[in-house]
């Protein structure tokens, strides 16, 4: 700490915790939640979200029993809310992986307090996402045919199909994210095990803690495994949404067939994910009194990421327009004109407004630190990113090559029911998580508590004081 004091004010890294936080008080604050009876507002909240989720499940059941015809999908818009929601949820998941894996590798210490939560959101989002490819097929009971399993009919999947790549990408992503998340949870679960006096919780925590004793060898293996999984997940952050974008980019549809799609999708995913993390984190921080651990600084940094991503999105939109013009491809040209002035032109402008214009507010420090503006931007980005997928999928499909086949798409009640049902499912899972497991990785936060690490001045640190190697 004393070293930090020698740095000029502007270069000093802000404190990552506020007030006096000791390892003991941290444990008491965070690990007590699973043991306490949730307050009434939690029950009210989960009643609402699970009701919405149940309604959504009802609509899904109706769809499976009746057919995709209960949705608004038609010819030529064969994909609509189903794939929009899929891409939307996969995208939401990306923030978690970015925070927990990439920022870990880059040693961004501010991630420590929010990584657990963001990772949980990743997993829930991927669960919501995974629902859609399953229910969107015409015969969901045969969806397992998408997996290349050995069978007596000697039928194999088509490895040329991007949809198959999707299956691999998303299932890998889910598996790695779940492992990564669980690995990080192990020391915390062990702490819970040690603290709890409840008879039926103890054995559960004991099993889940897989014999963690906090021994030096445990830590050694843990750190290595964590680093390895972080490395794996880092690749996935880039690959999963790239592969999802291949569904579009490798096809013939004007408006889909573009090389910019992979990076554009990855950026969009991180963008949407961060917005969702900010929104949910604010609620968690306020309702669980975690202001001292998730500080204004955390939120501000995330808002900066959102701002950066927003600028990249603006660039991607501009490039789409440029490509449409520069390609001199009449079909692509038509699609781009449709985005800004067609039947769904409002969706195009809504996307640009929500994703590019509104986030520019975050240039102002006041907006980056005010709940009102933050939530405004985050909600805007979430809506905007959903509509971005609507623009890509519905606008491109509804008018492609042969004008004779053009048709307007109108969603039905069932479409909305399932969309909101998936939101309900997501928030239900988030609420359960917040009460069952530690929302903050205590072991990681302990590592950044004042005095936790012996600080030694290194020449490199003197030259680049912002690059702080914590371990």
């Amino acid at each position, binding site marked *: 700490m004393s070293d930090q004091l020698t740095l000029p004010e502007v270069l000093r890294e802000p404190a990552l915790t506020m007030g006096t936080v000791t390892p003991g008080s941290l444990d008491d604050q965070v690990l007590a939640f699973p043991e306490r009876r949730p307050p009434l507002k939690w029950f009210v909240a989960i009643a609402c979200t699970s009701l919405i989720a149940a309604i959504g499940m009802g609509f899904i059941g109706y769809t499976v029993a009746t057919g995709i015809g209960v949705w608004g*999908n038609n*010819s030529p818009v064969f994909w609509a809310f189903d794939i929009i929601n899929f891409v939307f949820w996969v995208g939401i998941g990306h923030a978690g992986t970015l925070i927990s894996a990439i920022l870990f590798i880059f040693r961004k210490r501010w991630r420590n307090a929010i990584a657990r939560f963001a990772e949980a959101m990743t997993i829930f989002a991927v669960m919501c996402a995974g629902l859609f490819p399953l229910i969107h*097929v*015409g015969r969901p009971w045969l969806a397992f045919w998408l997996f290349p399993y050995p069978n007596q009919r000697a039928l194999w999947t*088509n490895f040329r199909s991007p*949809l198959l790549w999707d299956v691999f990408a998303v299932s890998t992503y889910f598996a790695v994210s779940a492992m990564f998340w669980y690995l990080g949870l192990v020391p915390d679960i062990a702490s819970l095990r040690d603290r709890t006096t409840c008879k039926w919780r103890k054995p559960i925590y004991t099993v889940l803690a897989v014999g963690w004793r906090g021994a030096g060898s445990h830590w050694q293996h843990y750190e290595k495994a964590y680093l390895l999984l972080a490395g794996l997940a880092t690749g996935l952050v880039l690959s999963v949404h790239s592969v999802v974008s291949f569904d579009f980019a490798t096809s013939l549809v004007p408006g889909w067939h573009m090389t910019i799609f992979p990076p554009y999708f990855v950026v969009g995913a991180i963008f949407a994910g961060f917005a969702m993390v900010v929104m949910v984190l604010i609620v968690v921080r306020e309702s669980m009194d975690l202001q001292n651990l998730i500080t204004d600084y955390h939120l501000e940094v995330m808002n900066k990421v959102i701002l950066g991503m927003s600028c990249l999105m603006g660039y991607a939109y501009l490039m789409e327009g440029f490509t449409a013009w520069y390609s001199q491809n009449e079909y692509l040209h038509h699609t781009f004109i449709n985005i800004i002035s067609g039947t769904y032109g409002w969706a195009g402008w809504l996307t640009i407004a929500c994703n590019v214009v509104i986030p520019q507010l975050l240039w102002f420090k006041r907006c980056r630190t005010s709940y009102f503006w933050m939530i405004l931007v985050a909600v805007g980005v979430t809506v905007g990113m959903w509509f971005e997928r609507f623009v890509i999928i519905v606008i491109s499909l509804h008018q492609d*090559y042969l004008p*004779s086949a053009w048709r307007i798409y109108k969603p039905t009640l069932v479409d909305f029911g399932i969309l909101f049902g998936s939101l309900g499912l997501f928030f239900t899972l988030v609420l359960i998580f917040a009460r069952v497991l530690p929302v903050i990785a205590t072991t990681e936060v302990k590592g950044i508590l004042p005095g936790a690490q012996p600080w030694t001045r290194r020449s490199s640190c003197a030259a680049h004081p912002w690059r702080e190697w914590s371990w």
Partner: protein
Amino acid sequence: MDLNPLDPTPRQWRSLEERAGLCDEQGEFPADACEAPRPGVSRRNFLQLMGASAALAATVACDRKGVPLVPYTRRPTEVVPGVSNLYASTFSEAGRAYPVLVRTREGRPIHVSGHDLGGKAPLRATADLLGLYDPDRLRGPLADGKAIAWDKAMERLGQECRSGKPLLLVTGASASPTRLHLLRELTQALPGLDLLVSEGLPKAPEDLRAWKPRLDQVQVMLSLGADFLTGDDPGLIEAYAKRREPGEAMLRLWVAEGPMSLTGANADHRLLLRPSRVAAFATALGAALREGPGAEPAPPEVDARLWKALVQELRAAGPRALVLCGAVLPEAAHRAVHALNRQLGTLGLVFEPEGKPSGLVPAQALVRLEAGHYGGVIFWGCNPLYASSEAGRWKKALARVPFRCWMGLREDETSAVCSLLLPEHHWLEAWGDHAAPGGHLALQQPVVGALYDTRQGEDVLLALLRGLGKASSPDYLTYLKERWRREVQVSGASVPFDRYFEAALHDGLVKVASPIHPPQSPDRSFPAPGPVPAGFELLLEPDRRVFDGRYGNNGWLQELPEPVSKTVWGNPLMLSLEDARRLSLEDGDLVRMDAGAEHLELPVCIQPGQTPGVLSLALGYGRAHGRVAKGVGFNAFPLLDPSGSGLRLGVELRRLGSRRELPRTQGHHRLAGRDILRIQEAGETAHGNHHAHELPSLYPPQVFGEQRWGMVVDLNRCVGCSTCVLACQSENNIPIVGPEQVARGREMHWLRIDRYYDGDPANPRAAHQPMMCQHCDHAPCENVCPVNATNHSPDGLNQMVYNRCVGTRYCANNCPYKVRRFNFLEFNNAKKEPELLAHNPEVTVRPRGVMEKCTFCIQRIQDARVRAKLEKRPLKDGDITPACVAACPAGAIVFGDLKDPHSRVVHLAEDPRGYKVLEELGVRPAITYLAALRNPLRGGKS
């Protein structure tokens, strides 16, 4: 070899050792190899018994009221399970007959197509297969709503006939000479019987109706509202297509019309002409022809330059010019056009009179009915309580008739007021003969036994005659044969009659006509048309799908897009762009239309090319009966002018403010400059077929086997009549989806006809393009399917494996032609019991959640292949005709092997007009389109 019963050698043996007695029980077949009966029930026996009893229990459900189901112990020679038979028969409708071939499988008709000798089948003949299996058909006689036996019903009918009270027999028009003969005998036997032929549709005057167009010598054609390319008369389309072959002698089609008709869409020059002005236009044209184009000023609606050109054209063509008049137009127009044709001395008309029983005219009959003259009325195959401008009067007048009998297929508006209902055979179950075009007499033979307890109408009348002691034939077939023996088989013919009749049955038609010399009747004078009242002109025409409403219960026809507006399931009011703008109406807006005392509230459809001030509406909708027909569209019959023409003047239109979505398969999209449908001017150097350098591909080229199937679609021949769409639907078990699903964009047609407008929206050019799976060599649908459900066959077909499809719909997204169809719901669930019999057993019925598309009729390819193999010969060009190819009256579609250098398809694909749609995508489609040709006057483009 004599068999000695004492010989210990077993007569049947399983192995040589056994025969020689060398084999002991433990030899080749050990004792336990097959389960010997054991005390108690073994697991295997139990399962066997359970299986057998379950199967037996299921067969109980097959029992049909005492009709034993016996498998063929001796198979009828003509029925081979799995092989279809073709029978010649005849479809008739409102006095016109068309020889057809009916394909049957295991005794049930599954497809109706054209006849090699008699031309292609009209649209509604193919569609009316569904009428046979209509679940709404009356299945037995009803008296006052209760089922009765036929003999009771006949007894009642006989009593009424013998009572001596005056009777009225109302029938539909028919071209059957034997039926005519029967009716004549009946009227002779029953002096109190009056005959009335009731066809409610507006028609040309009686004496002009016999003049039929013949195009083989026609050079210039002017249609004044005559929509002759609708598929009602496939022979005319065939002749037209032939005369449109590129070359010096290519026919030029001028159309002057009110609504935008299919014929107008095909015109070289199209003029907007109010229907009320047709007579004046024709008269002016006649004057100009006499005195030269300069003498007569152009009618106000026609551009002077075009008028001059038209007059010059007609003058130059002289007898090789033909002017046609719309059938529903007022008499004055018909007379004027007829006079014009006589003035030209046209070679384009032949005289083919229709046989018609002498009877009452509707007005007389109604007056007598209203006066309570009749003791009974019998309706036979007609529906005057719906399909008549006087339906209301009929209904009132009938209340005064004590006995009302009805014979027909399915209950309708007329049967609803009758007490005795006698169900009739469908035409596929009945005998008959018909005067067919070209001086033929066509035979109609039943191709299936009666599905229900029905009788042929003629048989009922014959039974009446027998009851009066005036006839001896036991049934109509005998009656028919007797008449044929007497009158049709030319005296002195060397063959015995039975053989003659059998040959006629086989061929379906015989040539009988001696040339008929047309009567040289002078032009009848006609009153000059009076002043046209203010307001809209409403043109009421029979719908080309449901006709006068009689096919309203046919889902295939209801869902067949109208060829120009592409609307389905209903009859919106067609309105011009200008009027729509003036009344601020949009597609689907409801309006109130007032015509005299009648009014209708219905949605409008804005039609580019419609003449301002002209409304048009199809007749035949708004039925009150029939599960399918009920509630679809609006009944326009009450709006018909009492004079019998389809033109109604002084119609008022008012916007109502509410909307109703129009189910349609295509909007008013223009080509937007895209090179999809190529139209060239005749004589212009073809710019197609540059064989755009084949784009490189990352995938290896397709390797083909012996054949590589391909198709050529000649857009110059295609007129857009959509007969192919219906034939495809019938052949490939394509379900109908209903108006709500069409409005959502889920129609299932594998083959659709795309219609594009081009040019000024007020009077655009319209062109048609059949669009089906292009069977691309590098099919974009194939590499995106995650489960390999769609793939390429060695003979170049893009195959769809329904069983494997899980329904990701990715293939359909990636199909640039959007020809893939997805079963969004279980569309086949709506089919009721007998309808399933209409299915083609060669084609899988697809469940929900599965993608489907055109297969090039793979079942026909396989059938031809098997036939060729059995005959030990290679497949030859023309062996395979997919359903669309077989149905197309214009011969616009040609199918064949692209690897056979001598095939027609290869020859045509090399035509300079050839091009491939969206070739620049590099998908390498197997279908070549030949650019459409327009033949406008040089420098006289409108």
